[in-house]
């Protein structure tokens, strides 16, 4: 087995608390507080929220690029979810977009960016997204339905129309997330109407290889324009752990629809990415039975094709 010519992480984020409202961290902290209390060490939600907040100060992506270099990852897709509508945050989405422009300028050829826009911003948001494509050169759309909308609601269709016109992919979050958000809109099946109405637009089910996997797999099998990513595979709920889960996922004839992603910095801030890559590509790892074409597709070629870019070194 050879590592692909260029590994591309199709799902990661800037670890910057200038991009994510504090309420998002507070939700994550609430679950961690329950767990730590059960283990005999009560820590308040506020304290954990502050700890998480202070861990996210990689505003220019330097730490992320160092991680990528160490792990042998050539390029990554930076996803920019728009939480600003639901949390009424002081952070505005245009500032966040411009921060990602700066990061790209600082690290040339390392990042593609999928801009998020909550469709309830209406025309203002649609115009911002189109500017992000035409002026900033961003490569895709990121949607976060748990903010409170279905990805097949017609309020989202103007964004898909922009994607159709510019031949851009859409990455849609699926599965549970911060408990401060609404999980009912996180079902992979909710992409069905949009995928049917916009057959020229390709949709990637973010976390589809980890959350609600049966639904995600069926969508990928039966909708030609639906894909899934495997982020954040290290935390999948599976008896045999993530290697066994991925071995099974990769054995189901869907590898042409699967793209690799880490979800950095979520879940891997402490471990780093390199140990995960080493285990993935180990001789007894979950790729051991795959032909080289599938490995190349999952770890780079497919996402490059989805964003319409050449693939290689």
């Amino acid at each position, binding site marked *: 087995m050879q590592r692909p010519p260029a590994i591309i992480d199709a799902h990661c984020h800037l670890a910057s608390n200038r991009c994510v409202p504090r309420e998002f961290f507070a939700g994550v902290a609430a679950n961690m507080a329950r767990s730590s209390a059960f283990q*005999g*060490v009560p*820590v308040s939600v506020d*304290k*954990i929220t502050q*700890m998480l907040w202070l*861990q996210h100060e990689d505003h220019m992506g330097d730490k992320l690029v160092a991680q990528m270099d160490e792990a042998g990852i050539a390029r990554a897709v930076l996803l920019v979810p728009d939480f600003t509508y639901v949390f009424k945050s002081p952070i505005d989405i245009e500032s966040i977009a411009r921060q990602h422009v700066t990061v790209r300028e600082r690290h040339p050829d390392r990042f593609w960016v999928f801009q998020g826009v909550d469709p309830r911003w209406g025309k203002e948001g649609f115009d911002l997204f189109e500017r992000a494509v035409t002026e900033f050169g961003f490569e895709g759309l990121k949607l976060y339905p748990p903010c409170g909308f279905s990805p097949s609601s017609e309020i989202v269709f103007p964004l898909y129309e922009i994607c159709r016109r510019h031949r851009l992919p859409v990455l849609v979050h699926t599965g549970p997330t911060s408990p401060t958000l609404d999980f009912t809109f996180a079902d992979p099946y909710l992409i069905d109407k949009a995928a049917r109405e916009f057959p020229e637009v390709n949709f990637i089910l973010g976390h589809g290889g980890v959350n609600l996997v049966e639904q995600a797999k069926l969508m990928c099998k039966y909708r030609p324009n639906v894909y899934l990513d495997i982020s954040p595979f290290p935390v999948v709920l599976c008896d045999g752990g993530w290697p066994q889960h991925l071995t099974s996922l990769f054995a189901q004839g869907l590898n042409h629809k699967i793209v690799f992603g880490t979800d950095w910095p979520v879940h891997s801030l*402490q*471990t780093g990415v390199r140990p995960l890559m080493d285990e993935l590509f180990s001789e007894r790892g979950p790729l051991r039975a795959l032909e080289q074409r599938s490995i190349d597709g999952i770890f780079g070629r497919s996402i490059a094709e989805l964003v319409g870019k050449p693939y290689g070194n």
Partner: protein
Amino acid sequence: MTMERLAQIVNRVVSSPRAPEVRESSRFVEDLGFSSVNAIMLIALIEQEFEIDLEQHMTQLMQIQTVGGAADYISSVAADAK
């Protein structure tokens, strides 16, 4: 001294009966199986035990790989706090 006190705290966080012995060279994730919740618990307990505030040290703390590395860092923070 810091190492001994820290090892006791780490043992409290890694409460599994099958947990390996904590050494200076023990890596939090690979050897001790630390999760993100374990890391939060450890930091909270260190603050209590050593009576120091680690909030401003989060970025550095998350980059420390071993128990010995953490002991050295805590010693320097505690010394600065005096």
